[in-house]
């Protein structure tokens, strides 16, 4: 089956002009010099994307990278400065739950109003009304003014309306981050239902785990430019590398400005399997892994700890420890030192894994952190899913 493009973003750029004045007086006073009071800010630059029907796309990126602007551009809320956005099918934007709820109206009236804002006709709302109220779980208060609702009830009702909208394309902006846990689970279940029904979902989120879990595709935006676009795994790797670069930059800045600081780095991290493989070893199940590290300390390193961790390629930490947690204080170090962690009988199932290494000080500051210091894989065919390998038995009682 050939795929159908439902959202076509062609060469979209968006410029915001930041003006520092608003009133008539200020404008008149500054007339002619008004260019001094303007500042251009490109929220999006030459973004080109095609989104196919039935896919779930995660838009990720650091704060201010243009994610929300792109989402609003797709939703028609913001017009691009140049470029075009084309759509196919019915679109609903869930940028805010309960947009357009009026505090003075009753729950019932607000359901109709909000549904209409989201694009349902009156007849459709009539049809779904009972289901909406049922889902929200606030039957008793449906004829009460919304201003008397608790914030939880408000969100529940708003979400109940939102999920009964029948869009082909659903734009979601961070709204999943509200509500208590059962409610969030309800949201996510519903999103899965939407995926199953072949709806296209474009999701803006900071929850990278959500992206890894739900999306078929992730788009990383940085300063308004598409930095990566592809399978969530690769895209997230790019994003994490970026975050790390930013963090390191900040660290360097702090080090440059602050009083003389400890300077040390992890010069090298090497893996060795029990069978003698090095580089990117492929372990057999239950094999022992040795992680060797070299630390170069330019200034004397005191009260420090060396850390090691195992993460999945998605960045989920499976294991993390350091010499302080292990109760092994390290003597002060100056110059080069070599250390080794041994992880015997790794209880990991088959898959790719990443080794994380860090030098921290006992007061909590990071001296050097390498999120992807080395890689290894585990081979085998355990009859299970997930990264943990454990013996299991089964009995019928």
């Amino acid at each position, binding site marked *: 089956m050939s795929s159908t493009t439902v959202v076509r973003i062609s060469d979209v750029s968006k410029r915001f002009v930041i003006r520092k004045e608003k009133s008539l007086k200020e404008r008149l006073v500054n007339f002619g010099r008004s260019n001094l009071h303007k500042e251009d800010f490109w929220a999006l630059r030459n973004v080109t994307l095609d989104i196919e029907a039935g896919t779930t796309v995660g838009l990720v990126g650091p704060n201010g990278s243009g994610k929300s602007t792109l989402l609003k551009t797709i*939703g028609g809320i913001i*017009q691009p400065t140049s470029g075009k956005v084309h759509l196919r099918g019915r*679109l609903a*934007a869930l940028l805010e739950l309960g947009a357009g709820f009026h505090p003075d109206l009753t729950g019932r009236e607000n359901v109709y109003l909000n549904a*209409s*804002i989201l694009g349902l006709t009156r007849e459709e709302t009539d049809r779904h009304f009972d289901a909406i109220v049922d889902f929200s779980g606030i039957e008793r208060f449906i004829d009460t003014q919304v201003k008397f609702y608790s914030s939880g009830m408000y969100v529940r009702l708003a979400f109940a309306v939102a999920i009964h909208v029948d869009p082909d394309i659903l734009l979601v902006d961070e709204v999943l981050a509200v509500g208590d846990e059962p409610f969030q689970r309800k949201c996510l279940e519903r999103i899965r239902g939407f995926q199953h029904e072949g709806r296209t979902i474009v999701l803006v989120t900071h929850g990278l785990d959500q992206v890894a879990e739900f999306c078929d595709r992730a788009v990383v935006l940085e300063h308004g430019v598409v930095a990566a676009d592809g399978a969530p795994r690769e895209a997230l790797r790019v994003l994490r590398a970026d975050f790390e670069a930013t963090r390191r930059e900040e660290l360097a800045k702090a080090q440059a400005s602050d009083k003389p600081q400890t300077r040390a780095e992890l010069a090298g991290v090497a893996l060795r399997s029990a069978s003698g493989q090095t580089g990117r070893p492929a372990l057999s199940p239950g094999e022992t892994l040795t992680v060797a590290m070299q630390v170069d300390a330019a200034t004397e390193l005191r009260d420090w700890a060396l850390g090691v961790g195992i993460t999945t390629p998605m960045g989920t930490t499976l294991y993390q420890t350091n010499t302080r947690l292990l109760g092994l204080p390290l003597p002060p170090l100056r110059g080069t030192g070599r250390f080794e962690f041994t992880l015997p009988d790794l209880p990991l199932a088959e898959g790719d894994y990443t080794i994380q290494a860090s030098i921290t000080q006992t007061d909590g500051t990071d001296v050097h952190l390498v999120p992807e210091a080395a890689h290894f894989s585990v081979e085998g065919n355990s009859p299970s899913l997930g990264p943990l390998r454990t013996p299991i038995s089964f009995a019928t009682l």
Partner: protein
Amino acid sequence: MTDIAEARAAALALEPLRPATPSSGFASGTLASLRDIVAHRQLLALLVNRELKSRYKDSALGFVWSLIRPLVLLLIYFVALGQFLGAARQVPDFAIFIYSGLTAWTLYGEIIGLGTQSIVANAGLIKKVYLPREVFPLSVVGSALFNFGMQLVILVTATLVAGRFPTGSRWLYFPLSLAVLLVWGLAIALLLSAVNVYLRDIQYLVEVALQVLFWASPIVYSWKLVQGAIGGTKWEAIYLANPVTLVVLGFQKTFWVAGDGEPFPPQLGARLGIALAVGVVLLWLCQRIFARLQANFAQEL
């Protein structure tokens, strides 16, 4: 992929790609804008409903308040201008005369005053959902018309009580005047509501301007007095170029039966017709400007 998913994808494949935002082209976008507004007429009805319900919610008298204000105004003008200043002696059925003009003026003032603020007042929605933004000024017109309807009932009742119920061809002035009022009111409200997003001073300017304009139409004084003061000069032409003046005169022509012997500007019907034609063109122009300006609403609010 599931069956539902495939069916959806197949249905989508048949649809053409459409632009995400309405065209801001000057001529080409008109039809699209109109179609968009018509498609959202149910929402418009709900928004009007919201305006009306929320306005006097939780007050014991509710809608009665929207009647009390013009009635109090009527009382003030009737006593202060009519009795103390003696206007009632020159103008037969002074109360009905004032109330005809006041009814028209209240509608006009409400459309422009509240219409100007409508976009800024709905900022929360505009920033979060795409809707044809014209629905907000339009919903103001809707709720203003509702109030107008109630005032009209009072006005008609008053003519019945006074024993001078308007009959016959004079009713023709009413729909014509109302059309002029709505077209001009909506055009100005559209324009100002959009400009107000960029320049918030507009809403205060409008308040002041409406107060001035109230006295620039023969609402509490009669046309006879105007004629006596500036009749035959170019000022008279300017005075009559104001569409609201024509509307107020049109309302008086309809409901103020006792004023039949009083002077009215010549060819009032034709003047109203011209005002309507100009108003329709203006409305179209204002809608196109609105369409242009609305592109940046979400970021300016």
